[in-house]
């Protein structure tokens, strides 16, 4: 775990530093810009699907899915960040409690 923490941290910092240091025209290339725009969207969306529906290499729908669905409603209602997370946690906990 320490390896992940330290490698990930170093990588993230170097990216920040690169942005401030690299000559403008390299990062300003439309191609790089376009990738940097869609990469976070694709990754966040993939992570949501994976962490809601997968356990290891298995797919399945459990209490988490209901929690994330409730969070989606909160997002659509423009609830603040903490409320969105709180709604998901509470819904998931209540469903597990009921079983």
């Amino acid at each position, binding site marked *: *775990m320490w390896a*992940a923490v330290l*490698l990930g941290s170093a990588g*993230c910092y170097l990216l*920040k530093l690169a942005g401030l240091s690299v000559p403008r025209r390299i990062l300003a290339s439309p191609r790089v810009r376009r*990738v940097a725009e*869609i990469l976070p969207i694709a990754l966040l969306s993939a*992570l949501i699907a994976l962490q809601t529906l997968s356990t290891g290499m298995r797919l399945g729908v459990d209490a988490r899915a209901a929690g994330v669905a409730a969070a989606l409603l909160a997002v659509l209602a423009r609830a603040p960040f903490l409320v969105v*997370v709180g709604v998901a*946690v509470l819904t998931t906990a209540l469903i597990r409690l009921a079983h």
Partner: protein
Amino acid sequence: MLPEPDADWPRARSAVLRDAIAIGAATGAYALSFGAVATATGLSVLQTCVLSLVMFTGASQYALVGVLGAGGGGLTAAATAVLLGSRNALYGLRLSSLLQLRGLHRPLAAHLVIDESTAMSLGHESDRANRLGFWATGASVYVLWNVGTLIGALGTQALPSPRAVGLDAAAPAAFLALLAPRVRGRAAVTVAVAAALVATACVPLLPVGGPVLVVAMLAIVIGAARRTSSEVR
């Protein structure tokens, strides 16, 4: 004309500082959930705090913890976090001409390049206010993000079982809240839906962490290729 912006400066400055503290408080509040999720995943309090102190970019921190929590390897977790952090490089590009950094200010400023500080470096009346927006927001978020992380991390240690209280739903919900403001327009919706489908389809086929990397590769290839076709126009 010249003295005028300076006459307004005290007022502009306090407005920027007020916003910076408000944003710091809000992000500090969601650091509570990061701290809780990270320790619930099995990271120690120290590892959790090191992430907030050194990585200091929320989505990447959640991603790293999420991949580890799902049983993914350390390298995959780190790679996912770094890929998500790639947007900070673009922010830096935009910021470097505004901030006019010299010497040690550059590595220091780099550490504070995040969504919030970048957003607060835009849209003020003067460059001076924009620069203050960056530094003040960066500093305020840094302090309160780390305080929130520590409290959240210590808080979960008191809990019986993180899963029983539904904490495994916290990370995907947090991603959802981070994703929502980015999904504007048909293209972004298509990217989001396609990424979720591809990732889900890959789950039974690849080891944990693999699906995320497949999606990342596809996003890079498609993003780069799409530009070539529109450059022709």
